[in-house]
């Protein structure tokens, strides 16, 4: 277990992210017992002073045998219901954001949602699952008393005090486009609440989009680096993850940039860290010093970001394409 981390000792763009696995907490008989167990599991995270905690899809109802209608379970997006309020209290007490995935209702429609609670326990935004399963959509199939309305194909991103984040839910993982749109809109971290783990696929979305992904599912919880490497995952002895991620980090193509890595290292020493993915020919460059911005280092040594390099190469190729 890590020691409690003082916020003043962190790097400027260091974010402590946390996620819970639901493994071992299902099946469950009642929603009340489920939330009691979830709150208990969350307690292990508080010593780390997380900036944000991600919970699994429909945290209060997934694999709970209690028979309720959608109308009874869904919480108003504008008037916090029991689960939202319960987690809002935690957010306030722990001074952290919480990704709170529950069924919601808004203007006569039901959604499978993730509510983003801010550090004051207020609702900062709501994401609606874009791609519910067929059985979720068709009324009276999976849910009693209605069906889930799919969310907009263009998912919102949310500004927090530590960066821009995106949210996704379960089967959304099967559609590449959502993940790409969030990247285009500046997402730096995406929180994935789900029943299924989607294991390697999430790692692929991380490197494809150059953002961190934090997953909280019925099977596991993981923190995935922008290279697709798993930074932390839950297991038998801890069904949660909590670790720092550094948003002062850039994703670059290795060639020909690698030829300048030595010079950069010589100048900045331990203040700059490279992580090279040899097989894929990528690298990340990260600042470990509060006064050094990665963007400025890249500029100083004439290194393009991965996206800049691909954009420039595409322009040249198009010019010389037959």
């Amino acid at each position, binding site marked *: 277990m890590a020691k409690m981390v003082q916020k003043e000792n962190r790097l400027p763009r260091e974010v402590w992210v946390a996620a819970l696995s639901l493994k071992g907490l299902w099946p469950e008989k009642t929603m009340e017992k489920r939330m009691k167990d979830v709150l208990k599991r969350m307690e292990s995270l508080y010593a780390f002073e997380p900036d944000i905690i991600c919970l699994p899809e429909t945290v209060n109802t997934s694999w709970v045998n209690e028979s309720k209608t959608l109308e009874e379970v869904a919480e108003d997006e504008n008037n916090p219901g029991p689960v939202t309020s319960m987690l809002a209290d935690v957010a306030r007490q722990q001074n952290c954001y919480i990704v709170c995935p529950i069924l919601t209702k808004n203007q006569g429609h039901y959604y499978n949602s993730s509510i983003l609670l801010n550090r004051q326990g207020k609702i900062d935004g709501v994401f609606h699952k874009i*791609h519910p399963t067929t059985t979720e959509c068709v009324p009276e199939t999976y849910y009693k008393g209605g069906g889930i309305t799919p969310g907009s194909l263009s998912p919102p991103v949310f500004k927090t005090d530590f960066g821009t984040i995106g949210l996704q839910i379960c089967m959304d993982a099967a559609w590449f486009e959502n993940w790409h749109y969030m990247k285009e809109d500046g997402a730096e971290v995406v929180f994935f609440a789900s029943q299924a783990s989607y294991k390697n696929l999430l790692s692929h979305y991380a490197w494809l989009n150059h953002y961190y992904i934090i997953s909280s599912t019925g099977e596991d919880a993981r923190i995935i680096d922008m290279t697709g490497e798993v930074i932390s995952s839950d297991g038998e002895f801890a069904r949660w993850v909590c670790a720092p991620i550094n948003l002062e980090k850039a994703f670059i193509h290795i060639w020909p940039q690698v030829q300048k890595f030595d010079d950069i290292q010589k100048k900045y020493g331990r203040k700059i860290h490279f992580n090279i993915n040899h097989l894929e020919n990528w690298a990340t460059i990260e600042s470990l010093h509060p006064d050094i911005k990665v963007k400025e280092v890249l500029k100083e040594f004439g290194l393009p970001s991965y996206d800049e390099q691909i954009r420039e190469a595409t322009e040249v190729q198009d010019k010389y*394409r037959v």
Partner: protein
Amino acid sequence: MNHLKNVSRRNFLRQSSIGLGAGIVGTSLPSCKAAGLNDKKLPGEIRLASVDLKGLWPDTTIESRIKRILARMNDIAGMQPDILCLPELFDTIWVNEEKSLAELAQDEKELGTITGIISDFAIKNNSYVICPVYTKTQGHYYNSSLLIDRKGNIAGAYHKMHPTKTEIITRKGEGVAAGALDQPVIETDFGKVGMVICYDANWLDVWDNWKNQGADVIFFSSAFPGGRILNYYAMRNSCYIVSSTGGDARIIDKSGNDLDSSSTFVRYAWATVNTGKVCVGTWPTRDRLPEIFRKYGDKLRIKVWESTDVITIESLDPGLKVSDVLKEFKLQTNDELLKESEEAQNQYRL
């Protein structure tokens, strides 16, 4: 190529084979005929093979490179591959001999010095070969992958869609052109193939072009290995990927997992795969597996790939079609499931 002028293609191959013969004495490669491999082929079955370039670079001359890679190709020829993949610009990459593009580029219709050697290998082994070389056609040079068929003819060409800037604009002023973005798949006697070369891997459009045309196998010839980039696109496209690179050679399953890869002491990879294999979701397949096992036993090969959340099903019985099994047990392929889900979502989306 002056150094090759005095050596005919066939003599060159013969000389190479003599060298190779010494190399394989004492190994236990079976005689192809004794193994009787061809008699046992299932419908849709393909034997894939690939060699890597590791340990063969840098090299001093093209002649040396060709000899050494032919030796490596012959090492795996006993597997009787239906197709063998070679690395990007296998004849010239990291070879110190200086030649102009005009001297190096092979014709795309008529066999040249290098393509002729590979053609001989293809005929001798009744195998297709992915032969990545510089080519010239209609006044333009390309970084290409030529497909040589079992009869040794050039069956098609793929032009690298996304060459690097330094390949296009060279110091000597003669660069390659970028290939068209809508190049067609090439039909073979075992299925549709697509090709991807090195830097291409960084662009989605290359992979989607092959997915949209239903490629059964994509051949990735490259200087860099590609790593998990290839695993993702195999899964996304639900097709096999065969890589042949400067660092490794791999056969990647439709499920996105490696089936085989070259290793420190064996610098080639091979696998027998089946184009009829399908990917289905863990749910609800998992619930129906016991009944499927009871009915079909070892007539099916079923594998759960937890890391990619996929179950693959392939038939081992010529009389049994996987599509019929899916229908019987009310299972959908992943593609069918996504299509059906999307229809429902669009119906209920505001």
